[in-house]
């Protein structure tokens, strides 16, 4: 509701981030009492920012092939490796991280550890994206330390926790809260009337574009109706289910189509990069369109989501060497 209200007002939502949306709920489920007492209150107060050390250059969609090593050094683990797509790492105070603690197994050799980003073994390099901004980083870990007390769950039991955390991530990314979206805030039909014009009956004068706008509007409404239905159904359950994977693909596809249509509606004015020949709304539409391309890649790509749907929901056989 908070997200929806901020979005409705067109305001930036300062509440959120990986601590509130993903790590907090997961730690409440899997952490010890001591871990909860230490890490949850600063998240609630907004004192500390968290980042997610999951993906690696060689472990994207195949996350469980991650190679970052954690060695047992008595009271701490010594961590060496490279993480990538670490959102907000340049601003983060702490990292929740997947590390390899057993090289003889794939999924069962992964542990979930926490460590402070404010230590010498952590080096962060922002990655410039096609939209010109740098929301993600490369994070290099060279003899970084995680204290033993900051191992969450059992040793080599991190994969289960990671999967749970990703469910929270996906429900956040789908725009299921209604706060998602990028590009123009104005509804497409209104925007199109401004840029393309209408005929005497009030129909958009470009009938081809009109049809595609209608299809997008209908997809959007159906997506929102599904979000409402899922929320009602979840009241009987205890949190996000496998249905969150459907929401991510449906939501991101709708929003990417919307961003493409926004550019098309704006025509030549939807091609700007900077400068005062374009309005802030026009420039925002272009940057949002580009930035939004990441939504079908991160948090489990569109292809990974489709695999999850095929395998877990539809019961189709898995032929990938997924072990």
């Amino acid at each position, binding site marked *: 509701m908070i997200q929806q209200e901020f979005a409705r007002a067109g305001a930036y939502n300062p509440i959120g981030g990986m601590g509130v949306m993903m790590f907090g709920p997961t730690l409440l489920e899997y952490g010890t009492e001591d871990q909860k007492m230490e890490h949850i209150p600063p998240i609630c107060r907004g004192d500390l920012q968290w980042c997610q050390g999951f993906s690696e250059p060689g472990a994207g969609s195949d996350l469980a092939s991650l190679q970052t090593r954690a060695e047992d050094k008595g009271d701490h683990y010594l961590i060496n490796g490279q993480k990538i797509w670490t959102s907000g790492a340049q601003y983060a105070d702490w990292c929740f991280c997947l590390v390899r603690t057993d090289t003889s197994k794939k999924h069962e050799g992964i542990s979930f550890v926490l460590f402070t980003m404010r230590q010498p073994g952590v080096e962060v390099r922002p*990655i410039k994206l096609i939209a010109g901004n740098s929301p993600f980083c490369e994070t290099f870990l060279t003899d970084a330390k995680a204290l033993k007390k900051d191992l969450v769950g059992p040793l080599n039991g991190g994969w289960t926790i990671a999967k749970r955390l990703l469910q929270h991530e996906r429900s956040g990314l789908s725009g299921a809260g209604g706060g998602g979206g990028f590009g123009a805030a104005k509804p497409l039909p209104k925007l199109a009337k401004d840029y393309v014009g209408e005929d005497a009956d009030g129909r958009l004068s470009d009938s*081809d574009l009109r049809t595609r706008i209608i299809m997008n509007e209908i997809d959007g409404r159906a997506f929102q109706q599904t979000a409402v239905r899922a929320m009602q159904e979840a009241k009987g359950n205890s949190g996000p289910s496998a249905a969150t994977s459907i929401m991510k693909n449906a939501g991101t596809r709708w929003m990417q189509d919307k961003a493409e249509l926004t550019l098309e509606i704006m025509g030549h004015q939807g091609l700007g990069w900077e400068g005062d020949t374009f309005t802030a709304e026009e420039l925002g539409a272009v940057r949002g369109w580009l930035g939004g391309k990441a939504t079908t890649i991160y948090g489990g790509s569109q292809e990974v989501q489709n695999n999850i749907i095929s395998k877990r929901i539809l019961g189709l056989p898995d032929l990938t060497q997924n072990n």
Partner: protein
Amino acid sequence: MAVLNEEQSMLRDAAKSWVQEKSPVTAFRKMRDSGTPLGYDADAWNEQAEMGWAGVIIPEDFGGSNFGYLSLGLILEEMGRTLTASPLLASGLAAASALILGGNDAQKGEWLPKIADGSLVATLAVDEGAHHAPEKVATKAEKAGAGYKITGKKTFVLEGPAAGLFIVSARTSGGAGDKDGISLFLVKADDAGVTKQNLKLADSRGASNVEFNGAAGELLGEEGKGYPVLEKTLDRARAGVCAEMLGAAVQAFETTLDYLKVRVQFGQVIGSFQALQHRAAKMFTDLELARSAVEAALQAIDADSPDVPELVSLAKAKMGDTFHLVSNEMVQMHGGIGMTDAHDAGFYLKRARAAEATFGSQSYHRDRYARIQGY
């Protein structure tokens, strides 16, 4: 690929080797990073002109080689592969076409040799709004002595920053949407009545909004009868954009295909997944269809065939959809690396949308195709 004659084969091979050696995508990146307001590399443009590329469609009497539109399309296709930014399309194709189709001998003699040797960048200034609509002309031309005074605003003028000569559509009679009453004029960019406002575009190419405030205009063709010449000119320009898009889309596809063969996830190259194989096969299918449409349009122009308008709209719609698809898939199939500015995928994506919008989007050309067909 179209069956080429010896000249065309040589031209294509020369273009291919120059582009690969002298103008790889790293050259485009360097140009972008330099922030040059021109939107292209001036030295590279000089080399293109020295090779005669700016004169490929210009008659020999006016300093060109008269090799035709398919020949120029072959060059644009090769340049499109590496996103080579160049005024070749705006000047050596679009503006040159307007002069060839509409100019008298004196006008051709004055301007075509300068276009052919690359010393002058000329360009069309025909759109006035956010969307391509060549019949929507509010710019006015009023008789003043032997010439005309042009007043109005033009948008999205390709290569506006470099242009020394504009070919401007203006109204000598009729209302805003009438095709009758439109005339074409030559307006020098250094005229006191011309103000350029350069655009900073996502694809880093050069373009401007241009304001004409009583600028001196010289009539090109007949007064009030400029629209048919403009349409013929635009169809040639559109076919040129299609050729560039074809090259860019083919390269975007090939780069993506290479990646599918080397990127390993789940212990196997991702190209071994049928979900991706079928998407690659679909792109290949669309690219083959688009190539046929683009080459047919260029050949029809060379043959001065009556079905040029429908073939051009067919090509622009099909090519636009194909480049749209391939540029999106290039990013998606590369995954995270395709989202980074250090990778080339974003360049193809940005260029795709700009080229799609240039001289009419897919929806514009689908509508035009249907109108020509009478439905």
